[in-house]
């Protein structure tokens, strides 16, 4: 299936969850935030949030600076 990650189209296996997606992208779990279709997904739901064809994923880092 095709999904969008930060405006890039990515081909992904069916039934991929967010945790698998981050592993697939070699992204650390710590310090990352993920939104699916503009909704932030809490980390406790990364393993049970299955991505669907056409989903718009935003992946970004926690910022602490000021």
């Amino acid at each position, binding site marked *: 299936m095709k999904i969008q990650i930060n405006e890039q189209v990515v081909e992904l296996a069916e039934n991929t969850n967010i945790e698998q997606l981050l592993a697939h992208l070699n992204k650390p779990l*710590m310090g990352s935030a993920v939104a699916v279709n503009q909704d932030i997904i809490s980390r406790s739901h990364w393993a049970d949030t299955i991505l669907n064809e056409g989903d718009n994923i935003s992946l970004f880092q926690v*910022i602490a600076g*000021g």
Partner: protein
Amino acid sequence: MLNDDELLRYSRHLLLEDVGETGQQALKNAKVLIIGMGGLGAPASLYLAAAGIGHIVLNDFDHIEVSNLQRQIAYQSSDIGESKVEVTKRKLQQINPEIKVRSINKEMHEMQLTMELTMADLVLDCTDNMASRQLINKACVNAKVPLIVGAAIRFEGQLMFFDHSEVNSPCYHCLFPSSEEQALNCSNSGIIGPVVGTIGTLQALEAIKYFVGLPSGIKNKLKLFDGKSLDWQTFTVNKDPKCKVCGQH
């Protein structure tokens, strides 16, 4: 009641239907705790003082260094070595002698922070590290005090508002659940002054809107600012029922 000096000083607020004399009086009665006097806290505190927030408490434990001056616009070269909160307090009183400013020149731990929150209507998190952000969030959730969080790095900014006086408000920890986050900060990544200034300025704007009774565009939202494209992205933050800070645990 506003005195004659105040009627003149705040005349541009009084012209606004959304502020007026009622709103200005609400600003005058407001008590805001600003934690962190760096690139966010500088513009936030200057604007809130100018706007007539009646009681401002400033907290930081740092002294001014030459490397701060590139972005922390409350300070000048002759302030180097001085305490950030003392210099800011002086500046705010010079801008607006009608308001009360108090400074706390040390790192607040949970007990003192909790005590301060009993006297605060709203908190601005303008800090520069994840441990402080988690501590402030937890204390605000427990004390049911609304929290406006700003953060910036490189050309990027993040802005969010959680009204912890509301029962089902999500919190910062729902979004970023660990104090050991490999979070980016200004000393390891660099920062452009106007980017952090934009976020601090918007924290002040949201604070003013909160007190005059205007709805916030960032409540339970996370706004991401891209200083290169000037694009904003908006995300909804949902309460995590398993959150160790605000959930049923």
